């Protein structure tokens, strides 16, 4: 599609990005999102076929990969078993609970840090360095304190989800243009109206970006902790199946986790679009 552009790009000595808008003019008729989706579908299909051929011909024997078609088949087979739904339900409960608790905590903390800058500055180094979460490493401590159950996973995942949201909320609120707050004063808004009517909508892009991070962290945290030790849940099941050498079912579970996380990512991208409609 981009063939027409190539010659004109050879004129400058280096492969510089041409000014915005000039590139891919021929392909502009198809929106970028659709082209991207199609391209990734093609890539995935190619990968699928390559692995299928590789496994079938024995070239990938060392990796222990089963045939992709078999994985799809056994995943569909899983959907009929009660054990799968109990693992799935447990993981979804953990993720859901930690998203809700983490968002409440993160948003609250972000607002408090904004209102009380001293507190925000004191917590900042801790938040910044725990942002990338060696927090998962606290899990063995949590299971000593709380026990091996959903509670300890939910507590840690909520904190993991809350931290990026708190940081983003604070940064977003600090970046509000003063004129917005002046408007609130002119309209004699009370504290609540200022916060919900003006401050939070003004900081929405940062807050929504933080929400996306929070969801990803809740998912990663929950599954990683289940994987370490648990009694139930998708992450735990993968480890269990690995240790019992049930390769085929294990790959089906891995496949389910991949699909679950991709679904969450897509959902969050859509939510972002809805929440920030009309801004860009």
């Amino acid at each position: 599609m981009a063939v027409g552009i190539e010659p004109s790009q050879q004129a400058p000595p280096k492969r510089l990005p041409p000014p915005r808008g000039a590139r891919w003019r021929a392909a502009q008729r198809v929106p970028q999102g659709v082209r991207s989706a199609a391209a990734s579908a093609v890539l995935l299909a190619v990968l699928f076929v390559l692995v299928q051929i590789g496994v079938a011909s024995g070239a990938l024997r060392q990796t222990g990969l089963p045939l992709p078609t078999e994985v799809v088949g056994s995943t569909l087979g899983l959907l009929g078993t009660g054990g799968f739904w109990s693992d799935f339900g447990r993981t979804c409960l953990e993720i859901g609970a930690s998203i809700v608790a983490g968002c409440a905590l993160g948003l609250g903390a972000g607002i408090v840090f904004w209102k009380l800058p001293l507190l925000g500055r004191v917590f900042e180094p801790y938040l910044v360095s725990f942002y990338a979460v060696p927090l998962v490493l606290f899990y063995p401590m949590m299971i000593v304190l709380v026990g091996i159950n959903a509670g300890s996973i939910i507590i840690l995942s909520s904190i993991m989800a809350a931290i990026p949201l708190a940081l983003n909320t604070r940064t977003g609120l600090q970046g509000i243009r003063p004129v917005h707050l002046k408007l609130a004063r002119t309209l004699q808004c009370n504290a609540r109206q200022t916060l919900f009517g003006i401050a939070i909508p003004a900081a929405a892009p940062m807050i929504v970006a933080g929400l996306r991070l929070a969801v990803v962290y809740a998912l990663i945290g929950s599954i990683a902790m289940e994987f370490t030790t648990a009694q139930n849940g998708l992450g735990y099941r993968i480890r269990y199946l690995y240790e019992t050498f049930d390769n085929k079912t294990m790959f089906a579970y891995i496949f389910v986790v991949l699909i679950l996380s991709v679904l969450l990512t897509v959902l969050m991208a859509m939510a972002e679009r809805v929440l920030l409609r009309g801004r860009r």
Partner: protein
Amino acid sequence: MTTLTKLRQSQFVGAVVLALLASAIWQISSGLSFVIPSPAATAEAFVQNFADPRYLRDVGETAQAVAQAFIIGILLGGAIGLLLGLSAAARTWLEPLLIAFNGVPKIVLYPVLLPVFSLSGSKIVMGVLFALFPVLINVAVGVRGIPPVYWKLGRTVQAGKWQLFVHILLPAIRLPLLTGVRLAISLAVVGVVLAEFFATRFGLGRVVLQAYSHGEYAQMVSTILLLILAAFTVSVLLWRLERRVR
């Protein structure tokens, strides 16, 4: 008075006070429950560990894996990020897949990596997978955000490819790049240690789980603290550097 207000405004003092407060809570709660080792017992285990050659070997093993994962992760993430930032075609083909993969809990892929990269290699690969993404995303976004004027300047002075990279691209993206590097170090630690929780011969992750199953909680907490302190120190240093560069 002025020194007092200065003290109050100092972030460092506040952070230290917060740490002391946390230790006080820890001390009190250790008196309430026998599963919580007291700070003193933990500190003792912390010091004693370093006299134990086997422990030192575990530390070395983990440190080496983290360092390798960190370096490979930064290089790989930087390269893919550059590709995504500079080439629209790469964006079209790879961006959605990379975004989706970023949201995947990568630890579930560990059983897939094990037969391919063996026991010692897999934890490095896991660390790389964790450390890769913050660098990748920040570099890609940073490169895309470079004002076109910069490129025009480069063209005007007829800079070579390498000169463009060193004198225009790198300085322009230094802030997001540093942020990515800072996140990468903690994530490399997480990736390697999580992998060690799962299966390994040597390493601190194994020490933690072993101490857990033997009920040696002081040993467990001191090892976790060592890991967290290491990641914390490096990322705070990088964060301060980041603020100075800005």
